[in-house]
């Protein structure tokens, strides 16, 4: 089992760091899945996360100049590692002017991801900073726990408003309440609502547009034949929503959410370099 990768381009390094920063805000510990073409950051819906789960998929070619991976076995050419993304985020934080960043799976005293950053220095040789990030190797038998979650059978799918606006609204609401209700309909309308003993606040968004989902096997999804005005809603932990929005430093190409009435909200953020899906369950 081997893994080595190298980033040389500063813009790629910058993008990669930003994505890691986003992941670090959403998950304290997560799974990094490496395949020949892609990297995945996975958080499965354990109780520890308050039931939230995350699936982030990145094409390695978008970031790495070199990427070599030999999985656990020939027919299972993948590696699953458990790590603390905050560590990776910290390691990359001071690397933003680096000449090169190399990441390697190593096992000196215990398995780690060794991030070696080569920085320019005034002396004849470069400054090299290494960060050994401890990782846990996930055995093959547990890989099934981390499969890509399927898109839920949603009631409403809608594009999100400009994330910056949504973020500032949610941040203000967070001061007033721990829970927020997201409701939306197939007419491009979305409301964000909070309600406490003293006050209730609703922010209305309209003309957002609804993504067209082609039904895969021709059968009706619950979104079909649905009254356009009828709202599907879910009450979720506002902190989770705020974390998701706070992590978005760059506007995604597409941002949408799928709401299963009173069950779960599924956010999908598509960037050029990859996609991020985040599931927040509704509070009972």
């Amino acid at each position, binding site marked *: 089992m081997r893994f*080595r990768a190298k980033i040389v381009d500063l813009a790629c390094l910058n993008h990669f760091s930003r994505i890691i920063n986003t992941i670090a805000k959403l998950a304290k510990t997560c799974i990094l899945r490496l395949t020949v073409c892609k990297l995945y950051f996975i958080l499965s819906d354990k109780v520890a996360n308050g039931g939230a789960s995350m699936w982030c998929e990145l094409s390695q070619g978008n970031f790495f100049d070199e990427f070599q991976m030999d999985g656990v076995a020939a027919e299972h050419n993948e590696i699953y590692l458990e790590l*603390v993304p905050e*560590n990776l985020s*910290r*390691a990359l934080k*001071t690397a933003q002017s680096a*000449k*090169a960043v*190399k990441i*390697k799976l*190593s*096992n*000196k*005293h*215990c398995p780690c991801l*060794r991030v*070696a950053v*080569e920085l320019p*220095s*005034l*002396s*004849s*040789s*470069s*400054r*090299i*900073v*290494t*960060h*050994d*990030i*401890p990782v846990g190797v996930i055995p093959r038998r547990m890989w099934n726990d981390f499969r890509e979650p399927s898109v839920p059978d949603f009631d409403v799918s809608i594009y999100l408003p400009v994330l910056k606006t949504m973020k500032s609204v949610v941040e203000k609401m967070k001061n007033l309440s721990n829970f927020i209700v997201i409701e939306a309909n197939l007419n491009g309308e979305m409301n964000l609502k909070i309600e406490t003993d003293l006050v209730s606040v609703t922010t209305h968004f309209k003309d957002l547009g609804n993504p067209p989902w082609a039904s895969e096997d021709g059968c009706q999804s619950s979104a079909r034949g649905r009254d356009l005005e009828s709202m599907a809603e879910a009450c979720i932990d506002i902190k989770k929503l705020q974390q998701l929005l706070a992590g978005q430093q760059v506007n995604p190409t597409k941002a949408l959410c799928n709401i299963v009435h009173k069950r779960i909200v599924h956010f999908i953020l598509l960037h050029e370099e990859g996609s991020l899906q985040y599931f927040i369950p509704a509070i009972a």
Partner: protein
Amino acid sequence: LSRIGDELYLEPTESGLSLRAVNSSRSAFASFLFAPLFFQLYEPGSAGPDTELFRCKVHMKSFLGIFRSLPSLEKSVGKCLILLKPRASRLVLQLHCKYGVTKTHNLAFQECERLQAVFDTQRCTSRLCAPARLLADAVVHFPPTLAEVTLGIGPSGKISLRNYVEDEAEPSKTMVTELWLAEDEFQSVAVAPGSHITFCLKEFRGLLSFAEASNLPLTIHFDEPGRPVIFTLDDTVLEVHLVLATLSDLESNSQSPSTNGVSHLPALSDEFADDLESYMAAMETNEGGSEGPPSPTFPLRTPQPAESEPEEEEEGAVPGTPPHKKFRSLFFGSVMTPGRPGLATTQEVLAEDSDGE
């Protein structure tokens, strides 16, 4: 100085005004000596045959409060007068500002004993001198919350900085950051290969930002683990010393420094090359042999509890935060004469709390 202690000690001497501070666990001490030339007027007072020059301590916060906003001070204050009035029990700071405005601050002070950590830079076996910028650039890679850092010299002479991981922390859970600096980045290097010391980053960072702001090179004097590390800045009118306790390494007491537990690192430093490629290749060739039980690269140990207990009782000082109990092999002690060899390795008596000379 405020990063070190809550009280500011003012000690006028013939050679200038000395401002000092010590932290609650007595493991960090700093002094800034301003030569008489630094001031427009300097009158230390007169010492009689039986009396010394008056000295006192004030609350750090009160003193700092007077100089709260530096930019506006620079614009409005013409002169600052510091006057010690022993009989009135007041330290007077008078700011003469523009437009005839005079702000007078009267601070209450406490008389105090001479605060002096005993240290001798001449006795240190190793010395490094570098522009503050170099060290600041190095330290930035460590998280702001990091408590301790280990400074080490590899066998090929490269200087390394590494975050210190406590023995109690699980090595498999803690991220380790390490970086190397080349000899030619320093202004002078006189070190013993294989030597290393571990000290607290917080107080050092404070000195580093001062050094960077004043554009002065920083000299690091150190010796064996357990003996204090001394950072100095020198200028024509200013002499700065920061003395920090270092983590003592019991192994070093019996072994010579060259065999001092620096087992895994040298193999790497030997093959250390200037660029990333060969460095990573070198890592690979060393990887196969991870011999022996897993242990941190610098197997530092804490002083055994038995040895430090007597200190604690006599000292009566509750270790503050940070550093924690491991830095109990400290350099301030109560009444003990420096000549007692038995305790030399575990406790450095560098200042005597008792009164009188």
